[in-house]
């Protein structure tokens, strides 16, 4: 009989050799850590998509299409000695770019839309929600997965692009243009697709939105094809870029900035749409919207510095600021439309997001916290800042007054800004009075209230001027025109010294409306909570 002997200690599995910590090891460890902390949605969607028939079909189609185009190009180049290699290269490159744009600008965004729509149509969305995965991570994961897919599609076409370049006739900058525009455009469209998928509350709406998106993308792609085959058209712009033209560089920077802003807004808004109803869904969108406002202001300040013109810097800055203030007030108006119409009472979770804010977050939540009270303050703050910008613009013009406005109309622009502010205030107060008062039972939810305010604004814009016109009065010369939003803005834009009296009266009314909003905001600042309950008009998921 043999006595059992102790088994030797097993070697530790795949223990990295610590002594020789080479670059590869470090990269390996880094990538393992990255994989460990990757967005779960990214990991899942990439795994799923790589096995999906749609991805494999598109990938094979791109590869086959590229090969056929390359063969045709090669045959033409070999047989036709007259053919110009430049045109041949451009035609080949255009074909490849169009295919690439189709994959990244149509297939991939539709894939993103389908990923969310399918998840929401089936019970799997419930399961993801239950994991506590934040909506922003879900949306970000989908976008990143779309990026990975885009890279894989690119890998299918990259050799053909190199071949087109080697045929000579295409400028490296043109290649770079395509390499930047198509992927960035693809990501932007994918973000829009995700937003649209989140927007649809039920299956039918999502089906409709899917059709709209699909058709829109298809038409946009068809429109873009002309560009890929005529890259010479952008050649002059690229030459200016190469020569260091400040205006073109500023334009490029603005374009990239707009792209980034679009992504942020789509991400934040999609996340808010996916968030649980009782959660704080206000802070993110409000913050993003104010961030956009600030971003615009920075551009309004930078552009006069970057682009020397006929006038002095003060003059240019003055124009830019007053001009921006008008757009900024419209932007602030949208914030007000959403923020003022929220409920005063908060769910306990929403209240906790305010009461548990510590340090710098505490004053921050005064404006960005959920609820109609803080919404009012946020709107007033943004509108106030916009008025300050308009005032600064006017100040830089040397406080020109009506007798001088034939020379320049920055005063009028500041008056337009103030008129818009007053009208927004009046609309919000009157709308609020109606939808929280007599019409409360008709407009119980914030979305309905927003629709009501828009309708009210539209009627108020159209009906008084039409009535004036029908009564035989001229809108331009009538003091009553101040009391309808559209005609008031029109009057303000052509302000002259005869208008002071009705303007002051109107301004008093507007200031009173702003004061009412301020008082309402401050009065309701104290946190009042109520339990969020289901709405009777909610869709019954079991109801068929």
């Amino acid at each position, binding site marked *: 009989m043999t006595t059992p002997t102790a088994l030797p200690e097993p070697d530790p599995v795949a223990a990295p050799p610590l002594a020789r910590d080479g670059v590869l090891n470090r990269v390996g460890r880094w990538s393992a850590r990255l994989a*460990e*902390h*990757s967005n*779960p*949605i990214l*990991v*899942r969607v990439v*795994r*799923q*998509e790589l*096995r*999906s028939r749609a991805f494999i079909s598109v990938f094979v189609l791109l590869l086959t299409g590229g090969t056929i185009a390359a063969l045709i190009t090669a045959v033409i180049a070999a047989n036709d000695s007259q053919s110009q290699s430049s045109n041949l290269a451009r035609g080949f490159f255009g074909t490849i770019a169009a295919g690439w744009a189709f994959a990244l600008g149509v297939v991939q965004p539709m894939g993103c839309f389908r990923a969310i729509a399918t998840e929401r149509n*089936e*019970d*799997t969305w*419930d*399961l*993801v*929600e*239950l*994991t*506590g*995965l934040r909506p922003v991570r879900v949306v970000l994961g989908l976008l990143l997965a779309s990026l990975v897919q885009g890279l894989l599609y690119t890998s299918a076409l990259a050799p053909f692009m190199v071949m087109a370049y080697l045929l000579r006739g295409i400028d490296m900058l043109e290649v770079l243009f395509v390499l930047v525009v198509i992927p960035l455009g693809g990501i932007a469209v994918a973000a829009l697709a995700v937003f649209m998928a989140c927007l649809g509350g039920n299956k039918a709406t999502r089906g409709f939105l899917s059709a709209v998106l699909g058709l829109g993308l298809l038409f946009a792609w068809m429109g873009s094809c002309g560009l890929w085959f005529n890259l010479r058209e952008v050649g002059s712009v690229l030459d200016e870029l190469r020569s260091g033209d400040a205006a073109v560089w500023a334009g490029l920077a603005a374009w990239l900035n707009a792209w980034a802003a679009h992504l942020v807004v789509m991400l934040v808004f999609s996340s808010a749409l996916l968030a*649980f*109803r*009782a*959660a704080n869904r206000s802070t993110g969108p409000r913050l993003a919207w104010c961030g956009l406002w600030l971003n615009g202001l920075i551009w309004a300040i930078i552009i006069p510095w970057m682009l020397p013109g006929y006038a002095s810097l003060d003059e240019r800055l003055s124009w830019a600021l007053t001009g921006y203030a008008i757009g900024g007030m419209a932007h602030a108006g949208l914030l007000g439309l959403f923020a003022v119409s929220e409920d005063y009472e908060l*769910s*306990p*979770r929403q209240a906790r997001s305010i009461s548990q804010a510590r340090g710098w977050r505490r004053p921050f939540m005064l404006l960005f916290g959920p609820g109609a009270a803080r919404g009012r303050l946020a709107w007033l703050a943004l509108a106030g800042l916009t008025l300050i910008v308009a005032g600064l613009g006017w100040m830089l013009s040397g406080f020109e007054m009506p007798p001088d406005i034939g020379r320049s109309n920055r005063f009028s622009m500041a008056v337009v800004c103030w008129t818009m502010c007053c009208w927004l205030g009046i609309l919000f107060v009157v709308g609020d009075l109606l939808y929280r008062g007599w019409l409360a039972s008709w407009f119980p939810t914030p979305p309905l209230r927003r629709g009501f305010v828009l309708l009210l604004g539209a009627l108020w814009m159209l009906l008084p001027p039409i009535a004036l016109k029908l009564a035989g009065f001229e809108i331009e010369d009538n003091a009553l025109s101040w009391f309808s939003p559209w005609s008031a803005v029109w009057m303000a834009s052509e302000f002259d010294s005869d208008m002071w009296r009705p303007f002051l009266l109107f301004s008093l009314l507007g200031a009173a409306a702003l004061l009412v909003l301020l008082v309402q905001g401050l009065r309701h600042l104290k946190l009042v909570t109520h*339990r*969020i*309950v*289901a709405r*009777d*008009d*909610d*869709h*019954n*998921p*079991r*109801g068929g």
Partner: protein
Amino acid sequence: MSMVEVKGLVRRFGSFTAVKDISFSFDAGQIYGFIGPNGAGKSTTMRILATLDIPSQGDCTIAGLSTVDDADRVRSLIGYMPDSYGAYPNMTVEEYLDFFARAYRLRGPARTRAVADVVEFCQLGQLRDKLITTLSKGMKQRLCLGRCLIHDPKLLILDEPSAGLDPRARIEFRELLRLLAEQGKAIFISSHILAELEELCHGVAIIEQGRLVASGPIGEIKARAMANRDAVTSGVLPSTLELRLAEPFARLAEVLAEQPELSEVQVEGLAASARFRGGNAAQAALVRRLVQAGVPLYHVAGRSENLEDLFMHLTEGKVQ
């Protein structure tokens, strides 16, 4: 404090009220059944309990946390299996579990261990690398139970998990649930297979047309139902009465036919059965009369007292 408390729950969809003021509670380590006909409001109640919907009135608490106000914290305590399994296409079993483990913020070795534990518990070892779409219904259901367990929840909410399963899969699944209850998990399960629930559950809630008809331990409900039979349903619902005789009795069919509470009398040798209409007192009087008439009775079985009969007794088969 009970693990799960449902208090005055109401859920309206427009003019339609799916759940009408229902309340019940149960503790950790218990398996609680939820019974009702199709469209009775079971899934709606379960969705509210799983924080996926909001009640129109009332509240549900899990370990003292409201499913509306503390939904984030509640979600880490529950595992929910909808009536459709909620599986993804183009994913293997291991990838599916790994995705949910990642989503529940399990990292590194903890995630690997959680996936391995679940695979072992649900006996999915040989299927790790198989695509979910190729699995049988029973295996998919195990996988989905595994998904529910990946973050070690305190409460499992299972909406008709046995629907469409073969008997073996059903028995194996039942055993898994028993093991989980022994580990201290509370399990809230709805099913149409009442015999299965009777064997498995510590208590049940019976719901019809959105209204709670009865709730509590099965024994208590039975006792209550039997005690109320006279008062509530006397003469309304017929049941089968079985009689056994110690020795032959020639006039048995004749005597039984004379009894006003009995109908559809059938006699076979020393056994007889008949449809009986009446309450407990009526049954006692009938037995007395039969004995006085000389029938050598040694066994009388009144209405059978399983969960199915109880369900039929308590509900009227109406749908909303």
